[in-house]
């Protein structure tokens, strides 16, 4: 048997229902779903209003840390070579 890969983990029926997952969206935000909290630097929690959130990584959102779609207006581009699955 080979060592457990992340894929095995996803298919593991004993894995908790809500284990967090981060999806790296090309030219866009990070989608985060599952069980997690977003902590403020001062130790508090940042309010979260939905189960799956999009975190801004272009820096231009008006509602940071969340994405508001502004990345599309500023032509935000990510590099496929560092973000593709291996």
């Amino acid at each position, binding site marked *: 048997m080979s060592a457990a890969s992340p894929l095995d983990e996803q298919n593991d029926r004993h894995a908790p229902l809500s284990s967090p997952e981060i*999806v790296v*969206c*090309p030219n*866009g*935000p990070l*989608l985060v*779903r599952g069980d997690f909290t977003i902590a403020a630097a001062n130790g508090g929690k940042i309010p979260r*209003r*939905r*189960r*799956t*959130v*999009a975190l801004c990584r272009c820096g231009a*959102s*008006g*509602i940071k840390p*969340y*994405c*508001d*779609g*502004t990345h*599309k*207006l500023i032509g935000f581009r990510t590099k496929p070579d560092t973000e593709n699955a291996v």
Partner: protein
Amino acid sequence: MRIPSARGRFSGSLFELLRRPPEEETTGTFSLVEQLVDQAMDHHEILVDEDLQLALFCLYELHYGGLEGANERWEWNPGLIAARQKIEAVFEEALRGAVVLPSDRPENSDSVAEALFGLTAADNGPSMSRYVAKSATVEQVREFVVHRSIYQLKEADPHTWAIPRLTGRAKAALVEIQADEYGGGRQERMHSALFARTMRVLGLHDSYGAYVDVVPALTLASTNMMSMFGLNRRLRGAIVGHLAAYEMTSSQPNRLYGNGLRRLGFSQDATWYFDEHVEADAVHEQIAGRDLAGGLFETEPHLLEDIYFGATAALALETMSTARIMAAWEAGKSSLLVPLPSSS
């Protein structure tokens, strides 16, 4: 909702029929179908045909909340379904004729999303949201909300029809989006409920269909398009493309709508719906593009054209409808068939 006032020969016969019990009306429904053939529907006109769009809207409404005073058995009456299909055939032809599909052939789900993001970014129709943000009057904002109420008070419902027609990644994606549209299990956070709240703050009636009698054919056509895509399994590609385009053209416009209401002095209660969509649809557009449309393309690549069709048709009708509303306002007129009583 109540059965609205007829706008012509066909909706007139239909509404008369709906007030009777369906068991006795086999001949009535089939003569309705014949009437449609006579009426020789024209696909150049159907998007603005008051009589047919209103009738189609009510035929679909039998599958949603129903029509007060119409027996519920009318929903699957073969004559009415036949009539609906005749209108749908012409309506679909009109929509297909109104769009140009992109020719690029994507390789994978991410390139489907890229293509859809490209389509929606290239859309350069008149901007209702910029107008509302900068210059709309309270009366114009109320009219805008009335037009939107035809869909928004049952927001998400037409796309929900697609859930059992999808599988795997696309199905999980649609359910994830819809759960958020329906408030994540909290009734008061359902997007339709947030919209109703906005209407109440603006002094408008928030019961479903309260304004059907005053909105023009084009406004009804936008919702009819979604119902047609959602209720016909063969058009599942189109309903998926429609949702993707809808989500992809939402965050920024909704930010501007919220700003417009704030400019006019409205409270957070009025802007909640719009503010919610700035954040929600930045999430939904990613899921809709990559997992829903992209996922559907992976399992059923032959549906690509319909995915594009649904997306471009959504943009095209939005452009037409906005142009019509703004033209009325520019001429100093109401964009509704009957102006609203003024708010005091």
